[in-house]
């Protein structure tokens, strides 16, 4: 698998769904038989995985690129993000 860089265009894997939790308002990332509760910055990154580059996502959020890449790499390891 190619390493993630500022030019990567991450996409949510087809098995993963984002939804807002009805009880707490938090963002949930659901996938087969599992789910994660996302913190606000993680949710913001994933909601921008719409075909734009990781560099653009970091710029849009005013977040350090290294942090964005680290998060996306962790989800990519779990097969939840495709690059």
């Amino acid at each position, binding site marked *: 698998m190619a390493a993630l860089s500022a030019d990567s265009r991450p996409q949510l894997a087809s098995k993963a*769904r984002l939804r807002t939790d009805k009880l707490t308002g938090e963002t949930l990332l659901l996938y087969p038989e599992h789910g994660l509760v996302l913190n606000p910055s993680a949710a913001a990154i994933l909601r921008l995985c719409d075909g734009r580059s990781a560099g653009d996502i970091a710029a849009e959020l005013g977040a350090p690129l290294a942090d964005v890449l680290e998060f996306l790499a962790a989800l990519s390891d779990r097969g939840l993000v495709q690059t």
Partner: protein
Amino acid sequence: MSPGPRPYVLVAELTYRCPLRCAYCSNPTQVEDRPALATADWLRVLDDASELGVVQVHFTGGEPLLRDDLEPLVERAAQLELYSNLITSGLPLTRERLAGLKAAGLCAVQLSFQAARPGPSAEIAGVDAFEPKRQVAAWVRELDLPLTVNVVLHRGNLDEVDRIIALAEELGAGRLELANTQYLGWAYQNRAALMPSLAQLDAARAVVAAARDRLRGRMELLFVLPDYHGDRPRTCMNGWGERYIVVTPDGRAMPCHAAHILPLAFPDLRTQSLVAAWRDSEAFRKYRGTDHLREPCRSCDRREIDHGGCRCQAFLLTGDATAADPVCELSPHHDLVVAARAAAAEAAPPLTLRRLRLAR
């Protein structure tokens, strides 16, 4: 007053009927002679589950495809934004029906295999279903549905774990669940025949660990440890009435799919709501938290982790649901588990394949 725990997962056992007769099935060995829950009741159960906070629903059984109202149930789950998993043997299914289920909003498919080859599969399932299952796996991938392959492990297939992993890769599974047999239901009846040796388990574990690194990012590999070979119990269902709700084909709500053996009155969802069952019923409150625990669990530093283990297993092995789970080496009944492990050294007795048997 605290609102209490929140359920995340609804396990909807739509029917106990199944075309397969697996000797390790966790379904009850005897079932109550009561009519199946009607479609309208299942729809209400889904609504109530969503209200309680459930976000994942597992349509399972038996074989959920044997219900012809699976489509409207999947559709309702999708309307409620529940992540729906079809947990299936793959039989009986056509590509058209699977496409229809996807159109109704089905999110993922978990398909069982019994072994890496047809012969041993038929031996344990009583039916030769290997090729039809491969066909179903291909349809799942063609329709771009996520595929989990689930294989229950026992002494007869543990030595083939490398071939099972290769099969899952070939089928395009995103996730492979290698679940060592839990000795409840039919599996308990067949315990002596299914019990693996420690050497088998260690070898399989090493194969899985190596494959996990190789497959990272492509296929998630889950190896569910066999609790009979551990020294501490598993955190059964993440705690009694903490995360999971099981609804049986005849509409009883239970905290665990094996709980029917316990002498508890489980709420009947034909006459009461799932919300009330979860929050207020005696059966769900009975073993919540750690207050019910006795020694050696009460003062154990792991009591908040494992809650004394599996209540159903404690009852099955000791006749007392409040006892420590005997798989724990601190349990006064641990000798029962040590003795059961020794069966692996003996020749396997014949398997008793599951059948539907009504309680009298």
